[in-house]
């Protein structure tokens, strides 16, 4: 059985099981099939720069290469940000109960791109308890969320949907800004038209 995600609200722990919500489960999905002229199924592969070596699925790997061309194990590397500060890794959210005390405004929630949604369910009456009452009032709790730990935690939001169910929305903040008159978009300019280029037949 999957490990529950536990929240701490007030003096109580609230364990929830997670059920991913995506388009395929709500509306169905599409598969794309590639066939040759004889109706036989084709598969996607990679053609290398030499034009003749074909690499199938599972035939490639990613690695880390130092400036001198030598291989480096990922475990021996340390991550830093653009300012040169070492990035501290974050633990998995399943390791300890998540304290719910930060609340997000609608503005703040709308500033995030939500990439994952889970329906959260727990044993007993889902409408029972202080947490359920708070969510029913329209509160959106926010907290750092990381499934398995890593370099950066995503933004997690616990909220009640219009259908009365509780959902966990996982997303990333965006850089929406207010724009003044002088901050206009610069469209690409076309280069000057050179008539002599039209008469250039040296097209090798």
């Amino acid at each position, binding site marked *: 059985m999957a490990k529950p995600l536990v929240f701490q609200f007030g003096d109580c722990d609230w364990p929830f099981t997670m059920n991913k919500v995506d388009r395929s489960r709500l509306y169905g999905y599409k598969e794309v099939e590639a066939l040759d002229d004889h109706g036989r199924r084709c598969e996607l592969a990679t053609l290398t*720069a030499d034009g003749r070596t*074909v690499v199938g699925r599972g035939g490639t790997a990613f690695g880390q290469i130092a400036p001198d061309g030598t291989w480096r194990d990922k475990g021996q590397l340390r991550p830093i940000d653009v300012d040169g500060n070492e990035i501290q890794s974050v633990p998995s959210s399943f390791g300890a109960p998540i304290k719910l005390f930060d609340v997000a405004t609608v503005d703040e929630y*709308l500033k995030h791109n939500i990439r994952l949604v889970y329906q959260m369910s727990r044993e007993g009456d889902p409408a029972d308890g202080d947490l359920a009452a708070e969510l029913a009032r329209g509160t959106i709790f926010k907290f750092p969320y990381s499934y398995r730990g890593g370099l950066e935690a995503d933004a997690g939001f616990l909220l009640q949907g219009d259908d009365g169910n509780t959902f966990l929305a996982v997303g990333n903040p*965006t850089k929406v800004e207010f*724009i003044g008159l002088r901050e*206009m978009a610069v469209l690409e300019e076309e280069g000057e038209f050179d008539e002599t280029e039209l008469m250039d037949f040296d097209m090798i």
Partner: protein
Amino acid sequence: MPEINIANSAGRDALVALESVRSTLKVRWLDEQGRQVESARLLKGAVDRDLDALLARYGELPSVGKALLEGDPEVDLENTGRLLRHTSRVYVDGDRQIVHKVHFWEIVRNPDGSQRERRPRRMLDPNLAGEQPLRWSGVYIRRDQACRKFVFSSKVQLRHTNGLTYDFLYGMAKELERNDCLMLLGAGAKSKEPLILRRGGSPYRGFLEGRTQGDTYSLVLHFSDLELKAPQETPPPEAAP
């Protein structure tokens, strides 16, 4: 820079710029000597050395196993470990030969996996910057309500390209702010078509949000292709009436 052709509530339209608002964590990886490393894609094995090729060459799995013990038929000394750059995507058939003429079909399936339709693949054309502007629909939804009904997976920001379009967009942002709502935005003659950003891209429902702060404005187009609701439980086949 991508553009959008949009009309305001008075029916005036303009072509303005669209800007991405994604922000990503920039990470550099340093080795023990403090040197920055780069990610590289490497070749492990080509199709002429994979399991299917070895089976075609040796006949059965036990024979393949024996060959692997006696030698290294799966390793191509010329290619294994090669850095891959400037690659192309191709389709290959069952004989691992490149196919030059490929026909694409879409199989549309229901949530339970059953087939609903099979049709030639359709590549949808973008419709944000077409000749017909996206009309002001006048269909509003409260912001707090929208958060609980839809999942906004991405967004872009509208930006003016000159003084006239600054006034145009500022006015739109002010009107939307007054209503404190998101406005549904659709494409097509009746503003009901979903929005498509690029050719072959996924269709989305659009929601326009406007805010002002002094003489600055923020007009954000939120994209959603998912409602915030629990999936219906699909009964097992034997329980269906």
